[in-house]
C-alpha cells in the first residue's frame, strides 16, 4: 500500500475514534435535511429531483469543511505527532495527500448518508438518476476543493480559530466569485476581473454538475484547484513544520 493510503487509513479511523466524525455527520445531515425540506420546498415543488438539496450543499460545506480542516495540521502540531509523522520514511507530499484523502473520503461518507433523499425521490416519482449522480459528483468536487484549500490554510497557522475563519473567507471568495452580485459589480467597473471571477468560481462549475453536465473542463478545473492547494500545502508545511 502506498504510504499516502496508510496515512489516510489512520486518519479516517482517527475521525471515527473521536466525536468529531459523529458531530460532523449529524449536523450535516440535520442541516441538509432541514434546508432541503423547509427552505427548498422539496415536496411542494412537485418535481422528482434533488435540486433543492444540491442548492444548499456548497453553502453547508462552506462552514463544515473548514471545521474539518482547521485541525488537520494544527492538531498534529499540538500533539507533536507532526515530528513523528514527518520523520517516518515517507515523502512529505504523501503525508499531505494522505491527510487530504482521508478528509475527502469522510466527506464522501457524509454525502452518501443522504441516500434517504435519493430513495424518497425514486419512490415518489421517476427522477433522472444520471443527473443525481452527476450532482453528487459535483458535491464531492466542491468538498475536495474546499478541503484542499482549508488544509493548506491549516498548515500556515497553529491557531485553529484563525485557520477556520481564514478558510471560510477564502472558500467564500471562490463560492461567491461567480454570483451575479459580484460579476455585475465587476463588469461595470473592472471588466477584466469579471471574466477572471467567473473563471475561478466554484459555484458556476458546480451548477453544471447539478444540471447533469460532467464537462472535462470542469473536472480539470477541480483537479487543478485541488492539486494547486495540495502543492501549496506541501510547500508551506516544509517551511513551517517546526514552528
Amino acid at each position: 500500500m502506498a504510504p499516502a493510503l496508510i496515512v489516510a487509513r489512520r486518519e479516517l479511523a482517527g475521525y471515527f475514534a473521536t466525536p468529531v466524525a459523529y458531530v460532523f455527520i449529524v449536523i450535516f445531515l440535520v442541516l441538509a435535511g432541514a434546508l432541503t425540506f423547509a427552505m427548498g420546498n422539496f415536496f411542494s415543488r412537485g418535481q422528482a429531483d434533488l435540486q433543492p438539496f444540491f442548492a444548499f450543499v456548497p453553502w453547508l460545506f462552506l462552514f463544515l469543511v473548514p471545521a474539518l480542516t482547521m485541525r488537520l495540521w494544527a492538531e498534529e502540531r499540538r500533539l507533536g505527532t507532526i515530528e513523528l509523522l514527518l520523520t517516518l520514511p515517507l515523502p512529505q507530499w504523501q503525508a499531505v495527500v494522505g491527510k487530504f484523502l482521508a478528509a475527502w473520503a469522510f466527506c464522501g461518507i457524509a454525502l452518501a448518508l443522504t441516500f434517504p433523499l435519493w430513495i424518497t425521490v425514486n419512490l415518489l416519482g421517476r427522477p433522472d438518476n444520471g443527473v443525481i449522480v452527476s450532482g453528487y459528483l459535483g458535491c464531492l468536487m466542491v468538498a475536495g476543493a474546499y478541503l484542499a484549500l482549508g488544509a493548506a490554510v491549516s498548515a500556515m497557522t497553529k491557531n485553529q480559530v484563525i485557520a477556520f475563519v481564514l478558510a471560510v473567507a477564502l472558500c467564500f471568495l471562490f463560492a461567491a466569485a461567480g454570483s451575479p452580485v459580484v460579476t455585475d459589480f465587476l463588469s461595470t467597473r473592472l471588466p477584466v476581473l469579471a471574466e477572471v471571477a467567473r473563471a475561478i468560481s466554484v459555484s458556476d462549475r458546480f451548477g453544471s454538475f447539478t444540471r447533469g453536465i460532467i464537462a472535462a473542463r470542469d473536472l480539470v478545473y477541480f483537479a487543478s484547484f485541488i492539486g494547486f492547494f495540495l502543492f501549496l500545502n506541501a510547500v508551506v508545511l516544509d517551511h513551517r513544520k517546526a514552528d
Partner: protein
Amino acid sequence: MGDRCLSALIEIERLTKRFGGFTAVDDVSFTVGRGEVLGFLGPNGAGKSTTMRMLAGFMPPTSGTARICGADVVDQPVAAKRNLGFLPEGAPTYPEMTVTGFLAFAGRIRGFKGSELDDRVAHAMLLTQLEGVRLQPIETLSKGFKRRVGLAQALLHDPPVLVLDEPTDGLDPNQKHEVRALIRRMAPEKAIIISTHILEEVGAVCTRAIIIANGRVVVDAPPSVLEEQGRSLDEVFRRLTLGATAEAA
C-alpha cells in the same frame, strides 16, 4: 539493511541552525560509529533537540548537513529515515489509537506487512514491556507507558541508528533501569544518540559524552575522562556549561 552501512553510521558536518538572529546550533560536527552510545548533554535550550531534529530530517539545517548510513538527510531524506529510529522530544503519539494500532501504523509506513508486521509489533512490545496494555488507547496510559510506546516505535524496524530524545524522562526507577539495560543490549550493533538531563545516565549507558552549550560542542570525551576532570560529573557539567554561557554573554 545494515550491510551497506559504513562504520560511522551518523555523520554530522558543520551543522548550523539559525532562527532569525538567534543561533540555536552553531557549527556542530561529530560522528558516531557502530557500537557507540553517545550521551548528548547540555542545559535546556542549548540546542540538543534542535540538533536531533535536524539529524532526523524534521528541521532543515541553515547550513551544514548530516548523514545517516551515508544518506544525506537533506538530499535523500527517505533513505536516511529508513535507517533511523527516532524518539522525538516528549514521545508524541496519537492518543486515540491503541498501542498495537499505533505500532502497526509505523510498521506499515516502514513497509512491513502481514505476519512480519505482526512479529515486528509483538517484538517491539516485548522489548519495551508493553504487552499488558497492547489493546488500550494510548491516551489512557500513564506517562511512563506513553514514553515506552514512543520507544517501541523507534525500535520496531531494528534500525542501525537510534536517536532518542530523553528516553527515560517520566519513567520510574525500575523502568529507567530496564530502558538503560535495553540500550546497553542493543549498543554493539547500533550507533545510538541519547539526550538526557540525568548525568548518572551518562555513566550508566554511554561510551562517550558530548556537552553542548549555546549551540556549540564544549566537550567530546568518554564519561570516565570527564569524571576525572573534577569531583563529579555534576561539577564538571556545571563548570563547562556555565563557563560557556558567561563567555557568550
